[in-house]
């Protein structure tokens, strides 16, 4: 009973926050509601025993993605953008999509029943150990490929947003490494009372 009650509590909160994400006028509020939605889905995952994915969701989404959104929203001055709530134009396509999805829901929930598959033997009790057992053996290539995807995303984001300004003075590392001390420093012996002649 506790499980069902907390499921309904968290899922109601999740749906409400998702609706608020869409309908908020201020983008900052939308991002904060998005954080709340991710937090609620974390609670739901922990509730059904998928702790590792839940905590990863909290760390990655709230700690990285939502904060990235918040930075961009605060950096760009987009208070003046007005939302276009032009619903009438999109009613036909929305009705088509909604009826397709509704038919899918009715078909899947009424005519299909999901059964628990008891054949699979789970070696570990711990959720994290279960995931690690599969992730580093069966899905090893996919794991490495997802790392490459993240690297490409990082390089792409840097290349896209980097601005080269020639007016700013910066280090030229090649020039620094190839030069020697004789190109830069000149040792002069100064006799007393004569000073330095500038060549």
């Amino acid at each position, binding site marked *: 009973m506790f*499980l*069902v009650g907390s*499921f309904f509590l968290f*899922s109601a909160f*999740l*749906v409400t926050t*998702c609706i608020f*994400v*869409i309908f908020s006028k201020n*983008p900052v509020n*939308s*991002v904060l509601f*998005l954080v709340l*939605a*991710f937090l609620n*889905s974390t609670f*739901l*995952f922990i509730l*059904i025993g*998928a702790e590792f*994915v839940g905590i990863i*969701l909290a760390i*990655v*989404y709230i700690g*990285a993605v939502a904060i*990235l*959104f918040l930075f*961009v929203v605060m950096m*760009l001055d*987009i208070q*003046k*953008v007005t*939302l*276009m709530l032009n*619903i009438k134009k*999109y009613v036909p*396509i929305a009705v088509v*999509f*909604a009826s397709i*999805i509704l038919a899918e829901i009715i078909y*899947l*929930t009424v005519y299909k029943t*999901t059964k*628990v*598959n*008891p054949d699979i033997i*789970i070696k570990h009790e711990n*959720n994290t150990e*279960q*995931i690690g057992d*599969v*992730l580093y053996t069966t899905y090893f290539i996919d794991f490495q490929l997802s790392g490459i*995807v*993240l690297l490409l*995303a*990082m390089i*792409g*984001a840097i290349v*896209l*947003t980097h601005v080269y300004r020639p007016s700013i003075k910066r280090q030229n590392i090649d020039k620094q490494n190839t030069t020697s001390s004789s190109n830069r420093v000149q040792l002069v012996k100064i006799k007393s009372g004569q000073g330095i002649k500038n060549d």
Partner: protein
Amino acid sequence: MISLSYNHFFILSIVIFIIGCFGLFLNRRNMILILMCIEIILLAANINFVSASVFLNDINGQVFSIFILTIAAAEAAIGLAILVIYFRNKGEIDITKINQLRD
């Protein structure tokens, strides 16, 4: 007395998916809201994967939800970078004027 079943989570994920799609259709000018709606849709996919994995007693769904998480993070980074350079060029993020960027 009802017990928690997969259908609860399936309907929840469908509802969140529909909310995300609705947001995509509704806000067709604010680019950052479109990115947030994509995040909501990916969250719905994640909920579906994880709950199916738990109720079918198969760990592969949770592994795939980690991959979805990776792709979502990469997509958010690239999308926000494109948003920043679009804002730098145009001074606004109205997506209806993005077709003026050609030629």
